[in-house]
């Protein structure tokens, strides 16, 4: 049983823009047997995607393979000519992209792109290829497989696109499938469906595969063996069972521990009288598009939401993408003036738009965004980014301001030297800490965190959450924490509100979240979070909880429909 894939002493070097050559893959050996799925685990920047791409003989711009061999189905891709590599890709090795939404060409129909591999390599006549694609759609449990091909990528949901990407990879009957973090960008509930489809397809065709991810739980469901990577070197290799249950390398241990966040230590004054409400949202209605006669915008996104936020506490807002949780944050911050309803801060009504609010009101309420890359001005050094709010709100200048910047950097556990660096030179975690420090600079009462950890690796996210928790206790800050990741909410929030299609379906203390959720949709959401044990996904099929959860989804949809008629 020779290996379908053998990587021997692979070294890849990359050129930084200063012309300095850095080795990003330092001698990696790896093999995949026929029909085996190997997972590559590690933080971003650990080189896992680069290794996976060498299977297709492709290196991203600026990188090149220094030495070593990557033999796939007996042929070394490193030694191949470009023409040979072109014939090789799509037929022997196929690639499933990380974000399918970006990997589909927006101006071509889905079917054209799925069958393209067949046309490029002239594997079969077009009609046969289309028929095969429809069968693949059915195998991947896609809704109305006959007609979905005719649609354009923007007319299909993220989860469906991910499965269509898998179909695109399978059309050429490859020997090896390369999965490049295919489910990271998806919501928890869609993630299950996609994983289940991938697992079934791999099992039926007995194909080998390499699964790149930073989420141990997801990988545990699908991989036979796990390879843990850090800074371009293999830290540990073992079967999924071995690695998950008794990890040997301390980095793997950190990965697993980050997976079980300690439940939030209940604040001392839990039992005391509830603190004065700092923020109240009363029957908020908001949306986009032209204002109708009924005073509501064309696309209503928030449907009379009521929320209260106590000082020093943090409220979690969870829900799938499209549930309106980000719109809620933007409405409160004043970026989207509400169509109806009231927002009150410290008892005083807040004006709808940012322009009409006083500087003091704006200072008290800060917002931190998800993608740190677009949240920091790429052309201003970190020191200048932090100095601006200090000057704007507190008119600090000169030495006092410089000292305050240093204090802020300490507060978020960043070295002072980062002051001179541009955001593009920091890692994801560091950028998000700067993002947060900028919010702290205003000495606010309330911070709106809009999915601030979902773009980070689990280990880095855990560290950031820990920091948030400490700062809340130290400075008595109040958080409104928006996320689609339940473990994050569990780690940091006192209470949690579940949102579905623009309405708040339920609110409860986080402690009762696991067991006490009443609303069908809340229960479905909570039960969809992948657990660390390998059998979890398979177990779902006949798990009573899940069957009821599936029933709940239909019930939740019926509930949402009823609501719409009523309003």
């Amino acid at each position, binding site marked *: 049983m020779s290996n379908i894939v053998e990587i021997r002493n692979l070294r890849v070097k990359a050129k930084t823009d200063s012309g300095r050559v850095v080795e990003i893959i330092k001698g990696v050996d790896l093999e995949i047997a026929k029909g085996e799925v190997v997972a590559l685990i590690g933080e971003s920047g650990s080189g896992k995607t680069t290794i996976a791409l060498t299977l297709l003989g492709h290196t991203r711009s600026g990188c090149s393979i220094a030495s070593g061999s990557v033999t796939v189905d007996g042929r070394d891709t490193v030694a191949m000519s470009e023409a040979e590599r072109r014939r090789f890709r*799509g037929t022997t090795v196929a690639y499933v992209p990380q974000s399918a939404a970006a990997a589909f060409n927006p101006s071509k129909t889905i079917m054209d792109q799925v069958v*393209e591999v067949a046309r*490029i390599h002239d594997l079969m006549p077009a009609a046969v290829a289309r028929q095969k694609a429809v069968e693949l759609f059915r195998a991947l449990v896609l809704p109305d497989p006959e007609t979905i091909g005719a649609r354009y990528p923007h007319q299909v949901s993220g989860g469906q696109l991910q499965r269509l990407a898998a179909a695109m990879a399978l059309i050429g009957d490859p020997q090896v499938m390369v999965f490049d973090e295919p489910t990271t960008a998806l919501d928890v509930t869609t993630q299950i469906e996609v994983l289940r489809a991938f697992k079934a397809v791999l099992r039926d065709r007995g194909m080998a595969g390499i699964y790149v991810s930073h989420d141990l739980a997801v990988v545990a469901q699908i991989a036979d063996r796990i390879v843990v990577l850090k800074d371009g070197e293999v830290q540990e290799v073992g079967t999924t069972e071995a690695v998950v249950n008794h990890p040997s390398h301390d980095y793997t241990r950190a990965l697993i521990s980050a997976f079980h966040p300690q439940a939030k230590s209940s604040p001392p004054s839990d039992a005391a009288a509830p603190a004065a409400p700092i923020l109240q949202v009363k029957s908020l209605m908001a949306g986009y598009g032209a204002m109708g006669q009924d005073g509501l915008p064309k696309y209503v996104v928030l449907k009379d939401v009521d929320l209260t936020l106590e000082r020093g506490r943090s409220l979690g807002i969870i829900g799938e993408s499209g549930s309106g949780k980000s719109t809620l944050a933007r409405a409160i911050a004043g970026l989207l003036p509400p169509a109806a309803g009231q927002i009150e801060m410290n008892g005083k009504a807040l004006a709808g738009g940012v322009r009409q609010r006083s500087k003091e009101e704006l200072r008290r309420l800060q917002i931190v965004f998800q993608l740190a890359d677009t949240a920091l001005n790429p052309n201003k050094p970190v020191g200048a980014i932090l100095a601006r709010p200090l000057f704007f709100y507190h008119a600090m200048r000169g030495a006092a301001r410089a000292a305050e910047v240093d204090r802020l950097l300490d507060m978020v556990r960043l070295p002072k030297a980062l002051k001179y660096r541009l955001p593009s030179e920091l890692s994801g975690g560091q950028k998000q800490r700067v993002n947060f420090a900028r919010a702290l600079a205003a000495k606010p009462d309330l911070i709106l965190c809009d999915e601030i950890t979902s773009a980070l690796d689990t280990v880095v996210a855990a560290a950031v959450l820990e920091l948030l928790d400490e700062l809340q206790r130290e400075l008595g800050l109040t958080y409104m924490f928006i996320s689609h990741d339940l473990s994050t909410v569990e780690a940091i929030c006192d209470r949690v509100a579940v949102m579905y299609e623009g309405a708040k379906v339920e609110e409860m203390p986080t402690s009762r979240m696991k067991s006490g959720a009443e609303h069908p949709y809340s229960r479905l959401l909570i039960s969809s979070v992948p657990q660390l044990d390998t059998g979890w996904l398979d177990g779902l099929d006949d798990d009573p909880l899940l069957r009821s959860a599936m029933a709940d989804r239909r019930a939740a949809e019926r509930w949402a429909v009823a609501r719409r008629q009523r309003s």
Partner: protein
Amino acid sequence: MNAVVARLVVQRLGIMLISLLIVAFAVFFATEMLPGDVAQILLGQSATPQAVAALRTAMHLDQPAILRFVYWLGGLVSGDLGRSYANNMDVAALISGRLTNSLQLAGVTTLFSVPIALCLGITAAMFRGSLYDRIVSIVTVSVISIPEFMVATVAVLVFAVYLRWLPALSIADQVHGIGELLRIYAMPVITLSFVVSAQMIRMTRAAVIDTLNTPYVEMALLKGASRRRMVLSHALPNALGPIANAVALSLSYLLGGVIIVETIFNYPGVAKLMVDAVSTRDLPLIQSCAMIFCVCYLLLILIADVIAIISNPRLRNR
């Protein structure tokens, strides 16, 4: 699909009316500021005060200019462009012949320069960073840095005077066949293509390079697509929007800006008509020419935007 496009077209036509009004008033005040008026210019050196006054009454130019302008605007609504002051002929008749010439020249130049500019832009993007790419950009810049009248004169010297292959003048009326058409239009079209294509090449190259760096093009590569397929069927369709815009901007130059080519090749186009009109302070003619330039310019931009929407499904069927 056409709902989106229809709405855009209606909105743009509304805006075009506003722009036309702005241009009409701007041109009116501009012409009023110019020294002398039609009567003085026509009489030229022998413009003694009484002669000027007499001629002005004869051409009933004695009402205040603003009144005449308002009458002209009124006439415009009913499609009557008024009569030229200088030769009392109907402005529409005067313009129509020359407008067809201008559109003909602009059309031939477009057919000639746009495909070449796009090919150069796309191939330069395909092989970006290579020697070919560098040569194309150096040549583009050096071509546009040669003054237009120099390019035209060199072309005439070489092809008309020295080699006698092509006629030095482009008399648009004697065109009776394709062969004749090519001979007549060869040099003005080459000269204009020099000027117009530089902007298009640079913008096309930049647009295609942007789309080449996108994930879906890398996906095509990983599906085994060749470089040609990656550029033509994946990168290009998404770059059509910015390219169409660049082409529209460059072609808008072809109506109003070609005065030099029209003078050197003695080609009776609208640009030269506008120059004559300005020199004789022939207000209705100036206004009509300015209107035409404005309408063509806004139409070109509208077409570019419509192409951008049609080529992008996300905008096409929202």
